[in-house]
């Protein structure tokens, strides 16, 4: 192949991103890169602009200023907001995944687990029922959902199972980048631990890049390689996860780290 190796260049580059809601600031002047296979955590307190930032970079919300560039599978780098809507939507259901905090937002609650996982396959043109079902069964197994639950609806699933189903649904097309918004929010501690373990395994196995928004520093510690800390819509600290958590530089990060209960 000619040119630099793909891994040498960022998958996603965010430059000077800002979002205003009228006079209020959602986030401002955020810049960072995400490399292939890397997990980036965005942490901060409620209202610090984490979710606004995530929505802006995942094309769910148009930013007021700045640019988000993404490297497609063919190596071409494109500005997301200069792509057509059709291209963006195709990207979202093939090359990307989005795991919502509330599984009901990311799942079709009235169709079976198998159809939930198979939807993306059908959306990219698969028309063989047996193959779709086989792939769905395989993915349910990978996220530790018993195969005999394949025809049950997510309504009948527990919160943890729904969240795992949502992850399977997103990963079935082999995306390269997954956005997660508080993936463990609303789950009890033991279920959180298992989910984190699962996500960590999947991310490592599949070589996914992920951007995880969380207010829980433990999630950031377990999942992410790098993290950025936000406050009042701006990035106040960024670096390797270990470095930021063990040696926080900004006063707010120090406060955040020291406010974790040590049991």
């Amino acid at each position, binding site marked *: 192949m000619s040119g630099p190796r793909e891994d040498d260049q960022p998958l996603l580059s965010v430059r000077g991103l800002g979002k205003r809601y009228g006079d209020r600031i959602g986030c401002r002047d955020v810049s960072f890169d995400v490399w292939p296979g890397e997990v980036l955590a965005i942490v901060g307190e409620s209202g610090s602009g984490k979710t606004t930032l995530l929505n802006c970079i995942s094309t769910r919300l148009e930013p007021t200023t700045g640019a988000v560039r993404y490297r497609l599978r063919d190596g071409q780098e494109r500005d997301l907001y200069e792509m057509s809507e059709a291209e963006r939507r195709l990207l979202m259901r093939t090359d990307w995944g989005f795991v919502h905090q509330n599984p009901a937002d990311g799942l*079709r609650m009235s169709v079976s687990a*198998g159809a939930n996982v198979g939807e993306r396959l059908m959306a990219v043109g698969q028309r063989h029922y047996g193959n779709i079902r086989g792939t769905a069964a395989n993915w349910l197994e990978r996220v530790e959902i018993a195969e005999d639950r394949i025809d049950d609806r997510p309504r009948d699933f527990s919160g943890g199972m729904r969240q795992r189903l949502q992850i399977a649904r997103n990963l079935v097309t082999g995306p390269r980048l997954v956005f997660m918004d508080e993936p463990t929010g609303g789950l009890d501690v033991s279920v959180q631990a298992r989910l984190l373990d699962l996500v960590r395994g999947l991310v490592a196995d599949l070589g996914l890049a992920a951007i995880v928004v969380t207010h829980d520093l433990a999630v950031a510690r377990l999942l992410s390689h790098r993290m950025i800390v936000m406050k009042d819509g701006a990035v106040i600290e960024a670096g390797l996860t270990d470095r930021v958590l063990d040696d926080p530089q900004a006063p707010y990060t120090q406060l955040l780290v020291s406010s974790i209960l040590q049991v």
Partner: protein
Amino acid sequence: MTGQAQDIAGGMAAYNFAYLDEQTKRMIRRAILKGIAIPAYQVPFASREMPMPYGWGTGGVQVTASIIGRDDTLKVIDQGADDTTNAVSIRAFFQKVADVAVTTRTREASVIQTRHRIPEEPLTVSQVLVYQVPIPEPLRFLEPRETETRKMHALEEYGLMHVKLYEDIARHGHIATTYAYPVLVDDRYVMDPSPTPKFDNPKMDMCPALQLFGAGREKRIYAIPPYTRVVSLDFEDHPFEVQRFEEPCALCAARDVYLDEVILDDKGGRMFVCSDTDHCEERRAAGNRGHLAAEEAYATTEAAQ
């Protein structure tokens, strides 16, 4: 095809020809033309209040009223039959407001308004089939947002349609959708053929007649121009199939037609008869007899002797 306000009751207030005023007809015809230009695209139109409730065919009636002319012959069917309440009322309505010739014979009709069925008799280029549609949006039950379904049509994102068929197979072992079975028209738009049984889907494909669809409450018109490709959606390993009936029509012995089940008593007695009454009558007139038509046949032969 048009007419000036017709004085029906000697100087009293009168209806325009075919009930709707000429401006409304023009508006509906524009929607129809756009629908024909973009096969199966749902064209919004300013649906009018009609002197019948929504759900009784207000969309179909408005389409018929906009295309019917003085020398047209109208046939109206409901569930395949010409003699059911809805069919009789709509036929009477057009006799009254347009004074057009009406018929029950498929072959003689130039405009056929239908709910549910496509006549068994093959249609010709000189005929127009008007469907009464309750819910024009095939994606509605999976995606309730109209803004989103329009976008999905625009971007040809039809994966969701197969999710519905997948669910059918997962739950019933086969595609259990028997009516309003989604079709892909002219390799572009997915369309709901209104509540026709899927038995009639193959008749839509390359049909010589113009097919118009009117949804009054939902304010949508769409169309399939003559000789347009209409493909029923399916899976490679679960291909599209129409219903099969084990016995022939009890009155005319027809096979390969759509049959209605009629309960005869409370002891499990039942019969299967043609849903298309005109087709059944014609076959009986030609001497075909089913097992329950035997006595009648005997009586006629006796009378003839």
